[in-house]
């Protein structure tokens, strides 16, 4: 009973957030396009056509790149890459950060000190630098970008969880559960995790946006997704010379705008989600 009315409240609060609704619809449409367009239009992102550097129009909606690949096909596949890297890297951050944060909050003492100090070290250092060093060691690819960005994202989740655990661990019902002999892990999963659900969902959403930005940055430096794989970042990487910027804006404006719109929509969605889930939370 109570649960369903909470959900109803959340949904109705979210609906009043106009920008968040716009963000959500943009994302839904975008995801549908990314999933179905390649099938419908028979897009060939890796095929090298004869006329390289073709202008937009005719057979190739956005023309072809310097080697003759269809730019529109690459734009769509680049979107798939962004979504893939964004989602799975945050999943990795989640999988690493949540248990660590929970351990730190629950056991305190030296475990807490080591984990939270490590989180500080990661947070007080430019993650871009770590990511670059790591990629240079394991070699650039979609997988390595996903893994590296994911690993670098753990402190955010760990801190979130740590905070949640601290705030509930002294509550009476935890004491009660402990008193009747409930195992530590059972306590964590049954009582603590549900309490942290809202902030984690919010962190997850914003995490995807920032992971997409990081992937594109990494690819823009030539250290992320490698050609022939497509990514919005490496499309911009290929178009960064002044002559291309000046004469062939169709090579760099579409991927840039797609990145902007995607990240903006996710952030707006996340903003609405935060307001809807917890009206008391700020910024």
């Amino acid at each position: 009973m109570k649960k369903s009315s909470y959900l109803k409240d959340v949904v109705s609060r979210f609906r009043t957030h106009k920008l968040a609704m716009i963000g959500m619809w943009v994302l839904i449409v975008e995801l549908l396009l990314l999933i179905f367009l390649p099938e419908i239009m028979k897009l060939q992102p890796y095929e090298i056509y004869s006329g390289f550097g073709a202008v937009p129009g005719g057979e190739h909606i956005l023309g072809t790149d310097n080697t003759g690949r269809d730019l529109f096909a690459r734009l769509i596949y680049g979107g798939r890459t962004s979504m893939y890297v964004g989602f799975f890297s945050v999943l990795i951050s989640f999988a690493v950060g949540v248990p660590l944060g929970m351990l730190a909050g629950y056991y305190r003492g030296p475990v807490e000190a080591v984990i939270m100090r490590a989180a500080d070290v990661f947070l007080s250092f430019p993650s871009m630098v770590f990511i670059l060093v790591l990629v240079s060691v394991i070699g650039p690819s979609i997988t390595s970008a996903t893994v590296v960005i994911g690993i670098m994202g753990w402190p955010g989740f760990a801190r979130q969880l740590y905070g949640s655990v601290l705030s509930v661990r002294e509550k009476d019902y935890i004491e009660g559960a402990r008193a009747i002999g409930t195992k530590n892990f059972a306590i964590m999963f049954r009582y603590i995790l549900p309490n942290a659900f809202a902030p984690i969902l919010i962190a997850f959403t914003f995490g995807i946006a920032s992971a997409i930005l990081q992937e594109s940055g990494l690819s823009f430096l030539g250290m992320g997704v490698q050609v022939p794989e497509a990514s919005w970042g490496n499309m911009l990487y290929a178009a960064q010379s002044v002559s291309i910027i000046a004469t062939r804006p169709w090579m760099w404006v579409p991927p840039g705008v797609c990145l902007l719109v995607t990240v903006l929509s996710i952030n707006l969605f996340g903003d609405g989600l935060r307001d809807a889930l917890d009206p008391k939370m700020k910024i």
Partner: protein
Amino acid sequence: MGKYIFKRLLIAVITFFGITVLVYVLASMAPGSPVEMILAGTNNLTEGDVARLEAQMGLDKPVYIQYLIWLKNVLSGNLGISYRTMRPVAEMVAERIGPTLMLTVAALILALCIAVPLGILSAHKPYSAWDYASSVFAFIGAATPNFFAAMILIFIFSIRLGVLPTSGMYDAGVKTTLPMLLRHMVLPVVTLMLQYVGIYTRHMRSSMMEVLGDDYIRTARAKGLREKSVVVSHAFRNALIPLVTQIGLSLPALIGGAIITEQVFSWPGMGTLMVQSINYRDYPTIMGITVLIAGFVLLGNIAVDLFYGVLDPRVSKR
């Protein structure tokens, strides 16, 4: 106050060591041994040559001893020899510090100069057109990858209007002057700053609004102070405190942004050196830059902490 500073310094030192350990571990995972890298291209190597060089470089010792030797060298200013240029890393990096600092500090100061007044204005008239515009700007700023912003700026100001240069710090082949440097700085600084203007404005707005609802503001008004002096002498300093925390938190990302921005504008800073070194797998240089950046970020954090202590007299008590 003394105790507070000491505590912050201690944390900074621990963090610094944490980063060096991490960097060392990462670099030692890299494929290929340093000896191979150095001797690459040399013919007629005997096993003895390799072993001698390994011993000379301390590579026959356990890893933690190697780390300590490296750390000792780093702390005494010896960052090793670059595989790529065969020059001392310290020397190479030293040339790059100035340009990077110039870029980041200018961007940070400029962002604050714009964001602080804008935030106060938004807080003063919340839900006005101004306020709305600044929040749209903040959202778009935070969502725009800075390399894309850089390309747009280049397109507008360098290509269409032809008023600003697209790369480097100076024009080639002529005597360098300060106005020339400033002209070259405009686009990279604006690129780097864009993201932070919006974020800082929103933070300034929300902390200002919160402060304006505080009890001591009501006291100040009850004393008969004009609204302007209430804001300037009572609210402003209190509202800066959370903003300073935010600045501290965003320092690492600022450096990350600088790497990409330097790359777009071929700015001869640590970022471009970093990217070159990674392309060449020049590990001594990579490690040197990383350690140096860590040092700078921590110094920045200490500066933020000090400023924080100056702003808030209660801090030393906490």
